[in-house]
């Protein structure tokens, strides 16, 4: 069995959090805070920044590795849209170890409670 990271479940994403994230990240695409604009784009409501869920990957990996200084690479593919109210769980497992380089490759997923995978990711950690 593969070694896994302790999963992390975040509180439901709120619209306030999306506005906070827009301000902190500088991503002011209105689709994340302007409901009529999001509807014109075909969504039922505003959608969360994919990068917010990727930040959860960052927290998962940094907590497990012993700090952000151990992260050499962090990557994500955005698979499904996340809405306010969604509760996201991030999880990871060790995919490979490179003893010579002293690095570990992780595979990461972010999921909703119904099992929908919202992000797939990977990371390289030097411990």
């Amino acid at each position, binding site marked *: 069995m593969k070694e896994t990271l302790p999963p992390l479940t975040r509180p439901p994403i709120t619209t306030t959090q999306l506005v906070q994230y827009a301000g*902190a*990240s500088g991503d002011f695409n209105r689709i994340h805070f302007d409901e009529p604009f999001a509807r014109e784009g075909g969504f039922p409501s505003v959608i969360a920044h994919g990068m*917010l869920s990727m930040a959860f990957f960052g927290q998962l990996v940094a907590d497990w590795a012993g*700090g952000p*200084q151990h*992260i050499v690479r*962090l*990557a994500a593919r*955005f698979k499904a849209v996340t809405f306010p109210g969604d509760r996201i769980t991030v999880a990871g497992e060790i995919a490979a170890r490179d003893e010579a380089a002293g690095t570990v490759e992780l595979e990461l997923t972010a999921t909703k409670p119904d099992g929908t995978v919202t992000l797939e990711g990977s990371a390289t950690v030097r411990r």
Partner: protein
Amino acid sequence: MEDAALQSRFAPFVGRESAPLVLDVERGHIRRFAEAVGDTNPIYVDEAAARAAGHPRIPAPPTFAVALRANDPRAGIDLDWRKLLHGEQEFVFARPLYAGDRLTIVGRIAEASVKQTRSGVMDVMVLETVATDGDGARVFTARSTVLVRR
């Protein structure tokens, strides 16, 4: 490929680079970012906690790199933000970001392609952002793949 449908709308812009932007990594900005993403690790807000964990100064959470925005190399390209999707993101770090860093940020349109999907043709663009420090050493590279529905 001569087929216009398979020609990326962004192909003419590949190689376009933004004017370098010098940005300071500020601890208040790191705090606001950590609060927004809900990361309660004290090293991101408390200097003593950061030092106790072996950091010279307050570090930034890994994806804080996205908040160090280059001048947009897409300036002047007609983009419908309702049809734009973030497909992939990658960061490669030479070292963590620390409060007090002064970095030079350059954005570049690195690649363009088209993707045939179930919902139609998408134009794909890869944006690469490189941050260097005062010594010219690369601190991180970020690659962002964005897709725009036609």
